[in-house]
């Protein structure tokens, strides 16, 4: 790998400034996102007070509750209150459960993170191997087969994957439970049993996209003149991929991983619902069904923050991996 270089302090500072800029931009975007989320969810025709009390409530009762909930204040004031509350960790009170949103979420968030972590652990190495194998074999039989396979997997509905999994592993083979509850004191075996299907289903959902983008990133480099040069230097294909192509493909590959992991957020909605997994995504679906706006807004903001965080990480990795920026 590249030997250490005299990246002067000016280079390091330039990078620090650039990364700080990206972080700042992420926060600006997050603020704008919160504005959009608030605007959409605040535009609802009925209002929460009317809904909470039902049709039989007198106008006076509604007005009283409206005042209590702060709904009679102008929109920008409510937005200000909401966003400062969020920043301080107070996401309001759930209209349905009548308890702090923060509390509900803190019960669910670890489950979701655990599911995402297990899925990442399985899917990232798998996707990298498929993508790189496919690219090295470009145009060959393996590449074409993998292309068709990933192409089809990308277009599969998550609930088909999950339903088939239940049908096969729970109903027919009776290997795995069809619902996924993690007991507090689960051993490794139980852990594996309860996570196998949700993680498997999510892996099917994200691995194809990740592998395709990895392949594209590697293939893009394979067409560069420096790869032909490396070949004409007498390097083996393996050496060319490892020491020439991958260092240049790191940025796009990490970006592909981040994008796919963010897709996991959406895919988790169906998978969590089907397997009754107590995660954040199924919580959000409940919030939509019951029109529990404070809870919904908070969930949406968490998903968007995770997306922005993933993109930020990908950006920073790309900056660090690019010698043009690193040694500027």
């Amino acid at each position, binding site marked *: 790998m590249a030997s250490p270089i005299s990246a002067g302090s000016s280079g390091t500072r330039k990078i620090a400034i650039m990364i700080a800029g990206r972080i700042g931009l992420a926060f600006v975007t997050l603020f704008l996102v919160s504005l959009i989320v608030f605007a959409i969810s605040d535009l609802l025709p009925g209002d929460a007070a009317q809904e909470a009390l039902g049709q039989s409530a007198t106008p006076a009762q509604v007005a009283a509750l409206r005042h209590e909930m702060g709904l009679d204040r102008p929109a920008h004031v409510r937005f200000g209150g909401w966003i400062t509350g969020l920043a301080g960790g107070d996401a309001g009170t759930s209209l349905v459960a009548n308890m702090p949103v923060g509390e509900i979420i803190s019960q669910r968030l670890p489950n979701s993170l655990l599911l995402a972590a297990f899925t990442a652990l399985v899917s990232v190495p798998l996707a990298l191997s498929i993508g790189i194998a496919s690219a090295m074999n470009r145009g060959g039989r393996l590449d074409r087969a993998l292309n068709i396979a990933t192409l*089809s997997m990308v277009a599969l509905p998550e609930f088909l994957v999950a339903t088939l999994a239940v049908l096969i592993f729970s109903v027919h083979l009776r290997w795995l439970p069809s619902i996924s509850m993690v007991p507090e004191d689960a051993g490794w075996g139980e852990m594996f049993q309860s996570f196998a299907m949700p993680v498997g289903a999510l892996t099917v959902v994200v691995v194809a996209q990740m592998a395709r983008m990895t392949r594209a990133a590697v293939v893009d480099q394979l067409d560069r003149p420096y790869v032909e040069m490396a070949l004409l230097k007498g390097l083996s294909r393996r050496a060319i991929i490892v020491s020439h192509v991958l260092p240049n493909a790191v940025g796009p590959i990490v970006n592909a991983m981040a994008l796919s992991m963010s897709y996991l957020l959406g895919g988790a909605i169906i998978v969590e619902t089907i397997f009754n997994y107590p995660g954040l995504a199924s919580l959000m679906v409940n919030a939509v069904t019951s029109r529990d706006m404070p809870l919904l807004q908070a969930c949406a903001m968490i998903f968007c923050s995770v997306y922005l965080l993933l993109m930020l990480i990908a950006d920073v990795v790309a900056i660090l991996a690019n010698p043009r920026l690193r040694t500027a």
Partner: protein
Amino acid sequence: MTPVSALRWTRRLPLSGRVGLFFVLFWALAALVGPLLAPYPIGAFVDQNVFSGASGQFLLGTDYLGRDVLSRVLLAARYTIGLGTGAALLACLCGTGLALTAVVSPAWLDELLSRFMDTLISIPSKILALVMVAAFGSSLWLLLLIAGITYIPGNYRIARALAVNLNQLDFVAVARARGEGRFYIAVREILPNMIHPLLTDLGLRFVFIVLLLSALSFLGLGVQPPAADLGSLVRENISGIAEGAPALIVPALAIATLTVGVNLLIDALPRGGRRG
């Protein structure tokens, strides 16, 4: 395109493309004339048993209320494909229109539009759709709008990237130096060179939107009864999972063959159309 040239075109496709084309044509036909061919009235309870298997009487069995699955799938396919096509067209027309506007406009407008789209794209599409469904509800028209709006930023990003590249080419510089207006440059110089990748993107958006709407319906947040799309059918028959009922499997497979078919077809299309 004459039948002969269409046939020749089909023959040039690889096998996967021909499979894709078959599914796409099959479902297009099903959506257009399928409900006319339905053997039973859509809502009729025609079987004493629920979740019965395939038989001569009910080709694809019956559902959880004893209705004919084939008839229901044919109608549901029309909803899924109709909504998907409408929303995909909406997303691509708006996205591409805005992208072209941004590229030929002054820098501040481009900056403003792109900033806004970047913000929208930071909200994962399913999350954005869920928030909108919670806020506005889920009538058919709303669903179409919501699905369309959700995928505008994605199309915008791709169309803008294409248009920015084309806008830097010398033939656009020649047109500008000739004194051409912005509209002419966007529509006559830039747009014709984007058509091919944009059609590909339209197909991809269609796949995304069908998957999104099916997922919403599966969650009970999409198409509402008595109307039903393929996702709704999967939802209402989920209790048939223990039996492996066709009423559950068939609509799920229907979605899969539709989306996979479109994807395979797009991938098999000759790239770029022309050399260069």
